[in-house]
């Protein structure tokens, strides 16, 4: 016995003495299929010593006995082995169903999911691969709790509204900050024509490894003055050490509009409008001449009955090809990929193509120095459909009387009530080409044990060229085109940033974990734009501006801004169960007025992993339980570059250039400040087969950068001031459940988010726009509340449209009591995904929903206005009042007289919807069959997008947001849930094949 003890002691002593010499080898396998797993990082805990498994899953490294080896790979549960005397350690990694041990990308680093004290929604790249949409926001819609994503329309490649935990601003931008591989990228549109384009559409979603949405201050405050709207961290795919692989994916399909509306046919049109003119006392002769003059001299021809709605849509062909290769060894890893997408819109003439290439590589130069680069080059091309409000918007064709022909004698008919925008497709074009380069380079250096210095340079170059030509035959829409009109616009944003960080991590006595980050960053964004118009061309064959006889318009301009920032963060973990984190950022910006140059953005958070406590460890039922809470201050600085200046601009009179005041100075102008409180609980039950997360948050934004309305007798309409408060608070719930495990797997992911938005204070002012809009911002109400006359239906006695007054009803629109008539903000939003796999088959069914929001159809006054104008009417207008006693909601037809056509609750609808967003059925060909063909994997799939939509909304699509082109940020923030001939989403079905070599 003594001998045994002695020898043990000897081993220990010598073990320590020769610690450096102990070599460990082994093989890491996948617990499910016992195959070697390449690319697993094997690290001696608390040190930077480590290696990566090779293509067969084997590894070899030296480590002192008594130390702990950590085996880690995304998608697997990490394992830790304490070294005794073994020299061979084989590990079978469990694939990670619970995801708790996932490494999550956080601000300036990564962190284990279980240790995170902030609120972060993660979407894996694999969930959004090969979905037939051009940009990543569409792909994550409904997948991240608390992130509301609304496509402006069914036009491809256009702007998408993203709201993380609601709108926190009235006049400044509400879109989140996008960070791709460490670079804060340009996400605001730069285009000059039509609605905003989406710069994020330059990014190929198939290149994305993961998306993290940082929602609370603990997660986002390290981005300081730009974090209030949440931060979206996008990480692109990196190579993995081990056997190289080549992957090819091809898919193709086509789309149709999710829904069509019904409009009157010729007989119905003639009946309704004849009645409408008679009702206002027009003579038969008058009616005859109106139809002759304004509709068509052949209006009586029964064979002419055009369905204009059908002409607005096309078969939206889709194809996408991605080829990528990745691989590497212990020192160097790479990922190269190329992608091409060609997606037609459902609107005639609308199309989006993108060619992109990516190279991500990093290499360990030596034990201390690692360098890497991430490089992306893309060209997106958008064949544009004109903006919703333009007669060139093909969907406005529905306004045409059915007695008018689209084609006459084989040619497009240029003589129509409104512009026959099909002419644009033949005789004109409008394109926007974007060239995008994202480059980031980094060097990471281990200054000493536990201390890493990292320096990063990021470049984001966005160059856009918009070209338009309108030929002589399009002059009906655009008189300048009578002899041909073209324009050429460019915009370039050069955005660079330099970031330096020092990171210190240390584990003390196995119970204290410390992770400290110090950093500094400088970012500058420089924008240049120019435009030239050309008019009068020899022939329509000459389309370039160089061929124009005269140049009626031209401009050039530029703007820039910069941010200088310092930041620090300390994470502390005690005994693997008590978590604390504190961060601080100082942001200075050229955008801030002289009197408020620097802002301070602190955040603190605490976490408690209760399931590590003894009193709960023994409970079989609960496998994981964490409480966390955070508080911090974030800012929003996404407003004009020179808002603090009082400015004089140019005002031209014939050939004299003069000046005119354009803004009033405010040297104290600063950021908006948001106080974020968040409290969350994460529960894993039944061995983490079911994971539940609940978050409560309260975001109070004060010092709103408000364009405060002022009397225009001052010469201005607004003053930029830091005034006003807005609050967003809500609850988010996520559930992830592995309902069935084994051969037949069934996983359900569910999320639901309730956000309550309220404008608390607007310094006694309110914002409204009048005209065709109903949205307002006013204290005590959610942003964009619909405010106006409440429609009281039709007077059965005389067919008058009625509105509510405070006490009764009136037919005088101006006398109506103005009140809240709708709320475009949803009560709750979310999604549910069911994934079923059996042997080689997998089926993924994803529903997305929005509940409790109202949409105002601003086009109702034209298309559903009981024959107010000559516009063709929706079928429901046939239910108009005709004789005393008629009970209906559609007033008497009165042509050219207002009878219920003004903006009111008559055109406000509940636009809740449940949508089968994506359904994918895939089949993985068994490995056995592939071995002969020397293929690693083959997967074939069929996928549908927007297959079903359940809604009470009567328009084309409940998912709308029709902000006018060129409208201010404030207007786009407030005019939400407005439909104005807004094209619906596409229902797309694609077939695809994915082959791995």
């Amino acid at each position: 016995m003594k001998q045994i003890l002695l020898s043990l002691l000897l081993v220990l002593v010598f073990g320590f003495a020769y610690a450096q010499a102990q070599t460990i080898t082994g093989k890491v396998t996948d617990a499910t299929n016992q195959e070697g797993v390449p690319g697993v990082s094997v690290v001696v805990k608390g040190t930077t010593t480590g290696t990566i498994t090779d293509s067969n899953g084997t590894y070899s490294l030296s480590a002192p006995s008594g130390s702990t080896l950590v085996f880690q790979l995304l998608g697997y549960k990490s394992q830790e082995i304490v070294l005794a005397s073994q020299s061979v350690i084989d590990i079978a990694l469990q694939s990670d169903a619970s995801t708790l041990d996932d490494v999550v990308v956080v601000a300036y680093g990564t962190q284990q999911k279980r240790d995170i004290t902030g609120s972060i929604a993660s979407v894996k790249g694999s969930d959004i691969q090969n979905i037939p949409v051009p940009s990543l926001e569409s792909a994550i819609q409904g997948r991240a709790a608390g992130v509301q994503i609304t496509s402006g329309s069914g036009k491809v490649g256009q702007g998408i509204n993203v709201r993380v935990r609601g709108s926190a601003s009235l006049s400044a931008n509400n879109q989140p900050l996008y960070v791709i591989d460490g670079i804060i990228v340009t996400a605001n549109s730069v285009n000059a024509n039509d609605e905003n384009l989406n710069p994020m559409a330059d990014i190929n979603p198939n290149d994305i490894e993961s998306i993290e949405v940082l929602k609370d201050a603990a997660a986002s405050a390290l981005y300081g003055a730009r974090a209030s709207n949440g931060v979206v961290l996008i990480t692109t795919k990196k190579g993995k050490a081990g056997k190289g692989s080549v992957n090819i994916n091809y898919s193709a399909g086509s789309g149709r509009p999710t829904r069509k509306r019904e409009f009157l046919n010729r007989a119905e049109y003639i009946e309704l409008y004849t009645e409408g003119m008679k009702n206002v006392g027009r003579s038969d002769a008058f009616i005859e001449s109106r139809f002759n003059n304004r509709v068509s001299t052949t209006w009586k021809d029964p064979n002419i009955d055009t369905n204009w709605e059908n002409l607005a849509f096309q078969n939206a062909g889709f194809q996408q090809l991605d080829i990528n290769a990745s691989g590497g060894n212990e020192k160097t890893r790479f990922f190269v990929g190329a992608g091409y997408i060609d997606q037609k819109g459902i609107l005639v003439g609308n199309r989006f193509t993108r060619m992109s290439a990516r190279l991500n590589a990093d290499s360990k130069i030596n034990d201390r120095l690692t360098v890497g680069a991430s490089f992306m080059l893309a060209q997106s091309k958008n064949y544009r459909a004109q903006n919703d409000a333009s007669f060139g918007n093909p969907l406005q064709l529905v306004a045409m009387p059915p007695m008018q022909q689209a084609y006459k004698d084989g040619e497009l008919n240029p003589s129509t009530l409104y512009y026959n925008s099909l002419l644009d497709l033949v005789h004109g074009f409008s394109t926007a080409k974007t060239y995008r380069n994202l480059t980031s380079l980094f060097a990471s250096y281990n200054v000493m044990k536990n201390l890493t210095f990292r320096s990063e340079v990021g470049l984001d170059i966005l160059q856009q060229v918009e070209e338009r030509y309108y030929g002589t035959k399009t002059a009906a829409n655009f008189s300048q085109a009578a002899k041909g009109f073209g324009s050429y616009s460019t915009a370039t944003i050069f955005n660079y940033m330099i970031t330096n960080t020092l990171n210190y991590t240390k584990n003390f006595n196995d119970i204290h974990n410390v992770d400290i980050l110090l950093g500094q960053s400088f970012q500058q964004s420089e924008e240049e734009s120019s435009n030239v118009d050309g008019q009068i061309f020899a022939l329509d064959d000459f389309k370039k501006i160089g061929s124009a006889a005269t140049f009626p318009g031209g401009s050039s301009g530029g703007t820039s801004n910069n941010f200088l920032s310092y930041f620090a963060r300390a994470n502390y973990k005690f005994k693997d169960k008590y978590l604390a984190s504190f961060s601080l950022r100082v942001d200075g910006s050229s955008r801030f007025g002289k009197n408020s140059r620097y802002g301070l953005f602190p955040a603190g958070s605490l976490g408690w992993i209760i399931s590590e406590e003894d009193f709960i460890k023994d409970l079989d039922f609960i496998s994981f339980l964490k409480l966390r809470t955070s508080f911090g201050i974030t800012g929003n600085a996404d407003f004009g570059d020179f808002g603090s200046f009082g400015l004089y601009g140019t005002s031209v009179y014939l050939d004299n250039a003069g000046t005119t005041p354009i803004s009033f100075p405010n040297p104290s102008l600063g950021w908006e400040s948001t106080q974020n409180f968040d409290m969350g609980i994460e529960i894993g039950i039944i061995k983490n087969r079911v994971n539940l997360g609940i978050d409560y948050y309260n975001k109070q934004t004060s010092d709103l950068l408000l364009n405060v309305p002022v009397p225009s007798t001052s010469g201005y309409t607004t003053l930029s001031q830091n005034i006003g408060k807005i609050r967003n608070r809500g609850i988010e719930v996520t559930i992830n459940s592995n309902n069935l495990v084994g051969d037949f797997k069934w996983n359900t992911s569910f999320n639901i988010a309730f956000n309550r938005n309220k404008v608390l204070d607007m310094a006694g002012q309110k914002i409204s726009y009048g005209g065709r809009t109903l949205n307002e911002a006013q204290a005590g109400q959610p942003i964009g509340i619909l405010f106006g006359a409440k429609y009281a239906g039709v007077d059965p006695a005389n067919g008058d449209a009625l509105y509510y007054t405070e006490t009764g009803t009136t037919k005088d629109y101006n006398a109506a009591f103005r009140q809240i008539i709708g709320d475009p903000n949803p009560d709750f939003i979310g999604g549910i995904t069911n994934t079923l796999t059996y042997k080689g088959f997998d089926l993924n069914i994803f529903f997305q929903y929005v509940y409790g929001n109202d949409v105002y159809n601003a086009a109702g006054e034209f298309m559903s206005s009981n024959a107010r104008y000559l516009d063709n009417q929706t079928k429901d207008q046939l239910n108009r009042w005709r004789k005393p006693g008629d009970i209906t909601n559609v007033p008497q037809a009165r042509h050219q007289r207002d009878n219920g056509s003004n903006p009111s609750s008559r055109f406000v609808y509940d636009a809740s919807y449940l949508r089968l967003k994506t359904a994918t059925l895939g089949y993985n060909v068994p490995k056995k069959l592939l071995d002969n063909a020397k293929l690693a994997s083959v997967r074939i799939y069929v996928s549908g997008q927007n297959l079903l939509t359940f809604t009470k909304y009567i328009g084309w699509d409940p998912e709308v947001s029709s902000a006018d082109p060129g409208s201010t940020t404030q207007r786009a923030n407030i005019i939400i849930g407005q439909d104005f001939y807004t094209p619906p989403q596409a229902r797309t079905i694609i077939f695809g094949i994915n082959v791995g070599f």
Partner: protein
Amino acid sequence: MKNKYLFLIPFVGLLLTSCFNKLDEPKPQNSIKVEEALNTPDKIKKAVIGIYGNIRDGALYGGDYQMCADLLAGEFDIAWWGTFNNYENIWSKQMVADNATARTMWVFSYNTINSANKVLENIQVITDTDERNQAKGEALFLRALCHFELVRFYAQPYDASGTNAGLGIPLALKSDNFEKVKRNTIAEVYNQVVTDLLEAETLLPVSNSYFASKFRASAYLARVYLQMGNYTAARDKANDVIANGGYTLNATVTQAFTTNNSPEGIFEIQQNITQNAGQANAGLATFYGNLPTAGRGDIEITEDHLDLYEANDKRANDLIYIGDAANSPGGDVPSCGKWTDPTKNYVLMRLAEMYLIRAESNFALNTVVGATPLADINRIRNRAGLANLTTLDLDAIKTERTLELAFEGHKSHDFKRWKEDIDGKPYNHPKLVFPIPRRELDANPNLVQNAGY
């Protein structure tokens, strides 16, 4: 030593310090700071140009000031067929309280007035007396025009026999005044307009290219006095312009609208292919024009209006045409030929109006200053290809004025002056007055809305 890379750290530190100044680096590139905008004589003169640049906007003299006066006069002369419901509602007297045209006209007018006030408050920067007088005169002239147009649209008409103590519009006589001002009375506004124009008349030179000049101020005074029913002053100013202004009637009725700055043109908004009120969504020619090359054909001239003309009246034969813009597929839409080219000048004031003012004023006063009313009316008639009248009554003067100045922005103002019904509504009906824009009432609770809104 691998630690040699440590030298990077101080280097980076250096980089940091150099960043501090960078926060001041970004500068606006298409604008200048207010403090640097009005500090030299040349800059003041450039700011005067800027006022013209503002007042030519489609919401002001680029179109709305004139067109709305004719739309408001209504359905007898015009059939509005376009889908711009803001205009359609003005034409059909169905304006809602936040009518978009009423809003933009108000906002742009005060914006223009503010640029004039900025000039006036910094006028001492110009040391040369003549130059200073000219700049001041131009700013006063343009400010007066805006106030005059505003009070005619947003307030009840001036009543020569009344106290005019009713609500006018706020007078903006100070720049950057964020106070919640009240509406001045109609009398106060007209008095200010007259005061500004009289001062401008004395300050301005006789000749000043196409910019404001002495006789242009006189001509506007004639128009303002006529609106006030001050026939003596109106007659004398009109007579002064006719006798001494150096303007002559064109040979044809069309020339004033086809030739920029024709001999008859007193004051015109200068336009060309690059600088104009708009060719797609704004500007007189956009709405009146009904040609494949110009206009939307939104305004159709009614048979009732056509019936007003005698046979052979060139103002009907040469200035009204059958439009054939694409949206008139039947091709039988009579359209106004005065505004057919969005790149040509918009005539605001021409000599014919001076003859009409002199005739009407002489007739009212029973005087013959300059010429008899009959001679002045016949001068206008002859030019239109019509025979002389032998006797004259007020109706004949009114008809002549209505036809000669048709669609030039006079009719509803004239009818209110004459207290004549418009589309069956009495001249002072609330629906013949624009609403104070809702955004303005929201921003300034001291403003009182007009009746009927």
